[in-house]
């Protein structure tokens, strides 16, 4: 074990021992699982003499999480040994991750499943700590509601969330995204033949990507009304330029040898475009599609801050914040996060299918 691991193990075991000692002050039958965890944790100090496997640390972390979660509300207010148990459970999780990643380090690729386990452990740890701290320490719900409450809110307001999702994602985001990306692509193909237009438009396109384009939202609301059309218009403007710039760059990505080859065949412009330059541009185009998937969602949500009919994710977020219904805001954000990563994930999957040959995809 490394120094850090040794230290973690020692502190985790020590905290359990101290917590166990403190817990004797309470009636024996309360919080049995918590006390059991503290006892086993204290016992884990035998690793000073007998080495313990890393999976044992993982099991300790799980036991600790379950013990702390079930002990929530048993003691009011939560005593010191409760927090000690939480901290040592967290330390066991850390130790487990630390040891697992050390063990995985030499064989990076073969252990995809185990590699995935580590971020999951991290995510679950965050959720457990969040839940336990907000409920154990009675953090006001206005500041941070516990995950369980957010989940309850999600399940109880499915119709509202669905309506918002439909308004913002299925209408504004998808339509705006398709139009914006399509337009950027077509314009890129059109200006491709004119070096003059390319050298005139490209710097502008690059410049625009640094600007706070979401600011056009109030103008679009004024032009296209309160409904989804104005949000889609914002999305079109936001997604147009990344697509334009990336497609133009991608069309220049084919190497000079590959172009010379087409020239030796006396291939026409369109033959070269279809058979060489567009396939070579695919990784760039997909890059824009991925960037745009996030931009589109941001654009639609922020545009709704400027006024909507009474439905939509951005509308819900801004009004529920005003009413201090923070759990609803978090529920809406959770939906946005899931929608965003699924959108991105789908595009990545298509990308893998189309640009299977690219070194970044085939892992060369």
């Amino acid at each position, binding site marked *: 074990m490394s120094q850090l691991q040794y230290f973690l193990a020692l502190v985790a075991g020590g905290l359990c021992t101290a917590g166990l000692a403190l817990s004797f002050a309470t009636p024996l039958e309360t919080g049995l699982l918590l006390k059991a965890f503290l006892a086993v944790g204290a016992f884990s100090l035998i690793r000073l003499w007998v080495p313990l496997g890393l999976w044992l640390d993982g099991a300790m972390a799980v036991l600790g999480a379950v013990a702390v979660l079930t002990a929530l509300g048993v003691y009011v207010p939560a005593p010191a040994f409760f927090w000690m148990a939480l901290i040592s459970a967290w330390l066991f999780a850390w130790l487990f*991750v630390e040891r697992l990643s050390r063990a995985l380090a030499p064989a990076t690729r073969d252990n995809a499943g185990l590699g995935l386990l580590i971020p999951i452990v991290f995510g679950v740890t965050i959720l457990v700590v969040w839940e336990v701290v907000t409920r154990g320490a009675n953090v006001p719900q206005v500041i941070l509601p516990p995950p369980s409450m957010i989940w309850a809110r999600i399940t109880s307001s499915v119709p509202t969330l669905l309506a918002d999702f439909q308004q913002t994602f299925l209408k504004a985001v998808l339509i705006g995204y398709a139009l914006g990306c399509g337009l950027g692509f077509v314009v890129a193909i059109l200006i491709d033949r004119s070096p*003059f237009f390319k050298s005139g438009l490209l710097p502008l396109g690059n410049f625009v990507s640094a600007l706070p384009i979401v600011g056009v939202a109030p103008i679009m609301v004024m032009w296209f009304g309160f409904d989804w059309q104005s949000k889609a218009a914002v999305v079109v403007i936001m997604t147009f330029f990344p697509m334009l710039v990336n497609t133009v760059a991608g069309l220049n990505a084919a190497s000079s040898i590959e172009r010379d080859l087409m020239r030796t065949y006396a291939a026409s412009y369109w033959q070269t475009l279809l058979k060489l330059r567009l396939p070579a541009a695919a990784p760039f185009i997909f890059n824009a599609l991925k960037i745009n998937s996030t931009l589109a969602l941001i654009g639609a949500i922020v545009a709704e801050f*400027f006024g909507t009919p009474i439905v939509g994710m951005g509308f819900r977020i801004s009004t529920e914040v005003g009413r201090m219904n*923070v759990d609803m805001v*978090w529920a809406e954000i959770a939906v946005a996060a899931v929608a965003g990563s699924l959108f991105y994930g789908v595009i990545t999957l298509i990308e893998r299918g189309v640009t299977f040959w690219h070194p970044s995809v085939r892992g060369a």
Partner: protein
Amino acid sequence: MNKAFPIIIVLIGLLIVWYAAAIGMNAQWQNDVYRRAGTTDVPMTQFVQDTWNQEKPVLPTMHQVMGELWNTTVLVAPNKPRSLLFHAWVTFSATALGFLMGSVLGIALAVLIVHSEAMNRSLMPWIVASQTIPILALAPLIVVIGFNIFTGTLGIPTDPARLMSKAIISAYLSFFPVAVGMVKGLRSPEAIQLDLMHTYNASPSQTFWKLRWPASVPYLFTSLKVGVAASLVGAIVGELPTGAVAGLGARLLAGSYYSQTVQIWSALFAASILAAILVISVGLVEKLVARQMGARPA
């Protein structure tokens, strides 16, 4: 000069399209005005002139926006709420503070990730995934809650509290690109260069300062440029839900409440100019640093 020529031509083209569109988009309102005033047979030149100079046009023209910019910057003392410089300053201070916090945090996290396998494996997937979700949606929450905590629990006066809560959004938005870019940069030295340091028996800190850090500088500045632009967006969006009266975002919102299109456009232009200044400043620092590090001036 040769490079600028096509850009200027394209800009002139856009300007022409803009003015032409203004005639079409403002025509209906102008016709209504004439009808109400009972005016008929307006000559074409007069009609065009009028569409270009309405008070609340659907599409204001370039000279109206520029005029508004001039009126609200040069002709007003910069400490008055009527001055756009005042609003720009409010937005800028939140942007700069947030950008600073976000970059420092991003760099620090990147250093941790590069040096700890456990951190890398636990954090990196989440940081990458968080780039795919619309974190800007959190802005109203952070602003309102942050503002309440700062003024309530911590007892900070309202103005610094408002600044801090906007800066947190800015920091949050610039943090991710900087962290990801820095991880890439700190990992950019090739195996052969790391092997060289290994043959010298260099300590981790020597390898860091003599190899990884200098190698990461180009990546750092690329992500700083993205980060500063994101920070500005964060600050502007952070000004929307607070009912804030100061800042370019508040100007946008107020303009949209009262249909003051010229005001919206001028705020938008001011925000764009601010963005350009910020990105160009980072670019200038990049050039200076590159020269310091012996790069060939391009």
